[in-house]
């Protein structure tokens, strides 16, 4: 990094608020998300690089360079890809620690697809479901993007107009180094999980799977001529499977049956197979990178809970 120019009152006076490079090197260190890439370029896959390219075309080398440094040194303290089906769909929100005590808020925005568009995608995928399996398996075939384009859908950003950036820092130039850092990290996430690109467009994994499954069943004649389900039904089906409560509650009988129930069946046995714990069936990876350690921590607590015959009377 070049040494700071000699400080003269004139220069200070002439400093513009968007000149985020001044004064240099005063950022507060943070221990956030660290990029896997520690040198060279970001985005090891062609689809990850598309996100990087959209930003790199639009801003200067120095901001990009500082953005890479931020990404590598953990200045990005949080990064969330908005869940499809929520108001955050199509948005990546991140907090980046800069030179001020409070982290800057960075928002990346892409246009989400509407339900009709998503149905078109499902139509296309139903004829080639292997493409969807590939994406779920961590590979985005180029044919997948072509399939989207054939359906009139833009999956990956072609330029910054497809990926808007915003940041609360004083730099008036967009994208700033904070936004660049977020994009670099987003590219790394895309490298390992290309479905993130679909999630950004407002596509929910399980809903898409169900839509494709319904269409596949219909076209393949697997079911008796049921019309292709629309997304609402598919979402309902997913939600319904997930929560067995009839979202349309039962009608109450007005006769004597109103008062009568049936015996509750005996509960499932509580004994676990020897040598297994209650938490073994859960995916510790969901707890984060050190999930196993957390579970190991909990195990003695659980064991202590389970033994001891309780306190007789109550619970």
């Amino acid at each position, binding site marked *: 990094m070049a040494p700071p120019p000699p400080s003269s009152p004139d220069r200070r006076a002439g400093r513009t608020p968007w000149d985020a490079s001044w004064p240099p090197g005063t950022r507060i260190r943070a221990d956030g998300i660290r990029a896997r890439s520690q040198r060279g370029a970001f985005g090891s896959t062609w689809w990850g690089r598309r996100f990087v390219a959209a930003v790199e075309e639009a801003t200067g080398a120095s901001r990009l360079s500082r953005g890479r440094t931020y990404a590598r040194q953990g200045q990005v303290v949080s990064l969330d890809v908005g869940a499809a089906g929520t108001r955050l769909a199509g948005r990546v929100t991140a907090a980046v620690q800069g030179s001020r005590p409070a982290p800057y808020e960075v928002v990346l925005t892409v246009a989400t697809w509407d339900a009709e568009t998503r149905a078109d995608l499902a139509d296309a995928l139903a004829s080639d479901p292997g493409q969807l399996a590939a994406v779920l398996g961590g590979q985005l075939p180029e044919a997948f993007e072509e399939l989207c384009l054939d359906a009139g859908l833009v999956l990956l950003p072609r330029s910054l107009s497809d990926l808007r950036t915003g940041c609360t820092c004083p730099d008036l130039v967009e994208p700033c180094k904070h936004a660049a850092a977020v994009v670099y990290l987003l590219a790394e996430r895309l490298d390992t999980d290309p479905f993130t690109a679909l999630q950004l467009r407002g596509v929910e994994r399980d809903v898409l799977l169900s839509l494709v499954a319904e269409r596949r069943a219909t076209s393949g004649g697997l079911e008796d001529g049921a019309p292709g389900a629309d997304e609402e039904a598919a979402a309902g089906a997913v939600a319904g499977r997930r929560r067995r409560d009839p979202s349309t509650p039962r009608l109450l009988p007005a006769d004597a049956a109103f008062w009568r*129930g049936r015996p509750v069946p005996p509960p499932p046995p509580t004994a676990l197979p020897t040598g297994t714990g*209650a938490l073994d069936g859960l995916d510790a990876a969901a707890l984060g990178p050190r999930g196993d*350690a957390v579970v190991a*921590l909990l195990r003695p607590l659980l064991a202590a809970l389970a033994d001891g015959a309780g306190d007789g009377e*109550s619970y």
Partner: protein
Amino acid sequence: MLSVHGVWARRGALCLWAEAPARLPLTGGDADAVREALSGAVPRLAHALVARARGTVELVLPTGEAPPSAAFGAHRLPAVVLNPDRALDVLLEVGRTDTSSLPWPVTVGDDLRWLAAVATAARDRAAAGLLVPGLAQADGEWWGRWHPLVDRAWRRWSEAAAAAAPPSALAEVELQPARGAGGAGGQRGRPALEVVEHLVDEVTALVGQHRATRPAGAPPVPPPAAEQGTTASGESLAGVVAAWGEALRTGEPVSAGVPARELTDLAVRLERWRGSGTTQPAELLLRVAEPRPGHDPADDPAGDDGAESSDGTPSGWSLQVRLRSLDDPSTVTTAAEARRGVSGAWGQDWDGDLDPWAFALAELGRAAAVHPPLLAELGAGVDDDAELTAQQVVDLVTDGVPALLEAGVAVALPGRWLRPQVGLSLRTRSTALGATTDVPAPVDGPGTLAQADLVAVDWKVVLGDVELDEAELAVLAEQRAPLVQLRGQWVQVDQAALARSLRFLQRTAHQDASLSSLVGVLGQVASGSLPAPLVDLDGDGPLGALLRGEAETFVAPVPPPRGLRAVLRPYQERGVAWLSFLDAHGLGGVLADDMGLGKTIQLLTLLLAERERAAAQGAGAAPVAATLLVCPMSVVGNWEREAARFAPGLRVLVHHGPDRLKGEALLAACTGGGAPDLVLTTYPLVARDAADLAAVGWRRVALDEAQHVKNLGTRAARAVRQVAGPPHPAGGTQRLALTGTPVENRLSELHAVLDFANPGLLGTPTRFRERFSVPIEKHADERATALLTSLSRPFVLRRTKTDPDVAPDLPAKLELVVRANLTTEQAALYKAVVDEMLAKIREAEAAKNGEQRRGLVLATLTRLKQVCNHPAQLLADGSSFLRRGQHRSGKLALVDDVLDTVVADGEKALLFTQYRELGAMLVPHLRERYGVEVPFLHGGVPRASRDAMVEQFSGGGAAQEGGPPVMLLSLRAGGTGLNLVAANHVVHVDRWWNPAVEAQATDRAFRIGQTRQVQVRKLVCVGTVEERVDELMARKAALAASVVGSGEGWLTELSTADLHDLLRLGSEAVGD
């Protein structure tokens, strides 16, 4: 009559209400009556009915008019409202009471009983530990909260319990005045499953918290390890996790210091974790299906023309995508079948989050992540079975399956799937042909071989543990398919290796070869030029025993030669037989017995035996040519003396010194009649005189202390090969190596020694490094180790002192007089001292000064012994210990050789000298050589330091562990009293000629507590007074006891002429 009902209200409370006209809570006389009637059977319920927890509950109830009219009315009823903790007491009490037979005046409604049953099940489950901790925000603070562990069984039970709910339990509704009760669609109740989950969640949270924060008296829950900030894996966890763990344990809110963002983040992750349990009723199963029985691989073009690999041709193999029930793993269906409900329990009963087809597709994606070719193989989707080529099947099984299984994807392979290694086995057979008799008796017993015998060398190809006959191999190789059926099993073979092996076999399958060319065959193995790894090496008779490394115990014993002046121990007899066996078959060998087991005498016996055998053949037999023995300079004299002592019949020529024979003279002396039997020379001289020595047709070239040629680049290493001539000429020169330490530091040393004995056996140095040194030394490769063992063991005989076959034959104490040669520097000094002193003695004699003469004699002895130890000890000039890296003392070079072996074996030695200045010279030398400080116990060491030295040397009591490997002691200070049984080697560097004193010193190690054989070496220099006095004492044992026993005084009484004979420098003294 009081009818009590209950609903679990949305606000998380149990509302008890009663049918009109009663109102809860009861008051007045009703309360008294209920209290009286029920406090015995259901005290908590009775108490609740009269409690002051007044409230209301909003319900829709049938109006009692006939259906189907709008028969519901909304009611706000007075009720007893119980918070979860009190509610749970009541519900559990109801749950365990038979409420159908309560004494008047109370009946309990089905709704309350249903809630009680659900609550009881939830309590039991939580009490069994089936709960999951979480983090929840309430009242502006964060709390640890316990949730039920929801697996499929529990979810099913929840649904069943919900289905059993009486509608009255679902009648609590939010009254919406705008809508009016009873719309056109009829009255709908609260979703039953929602009620169940709500109640279970509350009960679990209560039970979990109660048990995690047990009151005093109950066994305390151990504080989580997080309090130390670390886990079992040693990682430190973020403070937020520790704070959460503490909150779970105490029931207090999470301490305020933890940042809210971290807590929010943790709560999200915990919730995701809680929901991550397996909820699918099935798993993806990738099934590799073998061709149907009707499918004959021979129908495939590839099976017939064999010109191309079978890529691209239908093989009949297929890859099937299936779902396998987790509840009943025998139920396997396609996704489409599961969807249609074809297979019984599934279909509409499929209770996964995802539709079965979508689930299968998502799982396929997961599988493709670890084995990307999968999707290409499957084509468009999950519905159709994919035809696989045989190569695809092989790739899938070879590369894909391990990765898929690792990732938790189930893969089913055809029942018996073998992936055997292609290997070669080598069998040797002795053939009846050519059983000549030119090698007589010792090895000519039944089942033995003679050198000219032909051996049949049979190569076979082995697939796994199946040895293929030639026809099978031809069929397999012809198919050129990676998958073949062999004896009813599907076998995946490396076709390339199979084809190479077939070609190799056609070339070399059944060779009749002389045995010595076996080394060449084995050399192929070592150099890796075989088409497939050697997996078995065996043969019949003695040859098989040799290959198995058992020859020592198998070959015919050699009868002890008449000329041998010693009795061999049994293991030595076996060693001689082994050497003789190798010799008879033109093979070289490495005799690698431990130091002290008698390698010298075994070689001498071999020489005697072959000469007596030749003599027995009569005059017609050609005389046996001489054996050349190359050894370090320091032990030439020892060889000479040992030969004279044990095999006096052998003619020994020592090839050394400036007067040694050269050129034609040497050739003439070593051949023809009257030629010596044994020629001794040194490594430096063999390098210098290589051409002359090579001209002699040696019977045998033997290297003693063969580790001296471990560096192949040295002149000596090249010279010994040159002198030994080309390997294995007919009736040619046998190559032997003797060493106590075949591998001192690196495997390459074994290669060097074995490659001398049997050139080419272990391949070139470079190949050896690639195939053995690096894999074994760097990676502890077991297969490389096993191969090296099977290649080297026929040709290396190594017995250790602790071998069960050897140990019983060993004496507890082995005393050896070991002879060292002088260096030329020592010899010159020695001669000068003798000349000078004898002159002075004669003067004193002439002057009739007996006292002066006696003093001069004793001084002479001392000075000569100093010369024998080290020139610098005599000169006392502080000159260097070594000169240009070479020893200035032959004796101390020998000490180094002995100590090297001791250290390499992990044993310890005591070094006794009578001269403190010699000890002082040795200390820095030994420190440098062995990298440890060597203690030196002498008269000037204070008592406390002596004790410390002994303690340190003994390794704090545990012999052999720790402590320096060598201890120096002065004979006077260290000769008595000490217990040093950590050592089992004793070296007397110089002599006092007092057997009692030496024995006493020896007994520092040879005493009670010693568990190993003790080897005692008394060093003397060849051709010097040391050796002569030693022989004198040995010859005249009686004299030694009376006269000599008193020390050196008797020497002064010798005549000057006798003294001269005793002191003079023998011509044999100098080694180099």
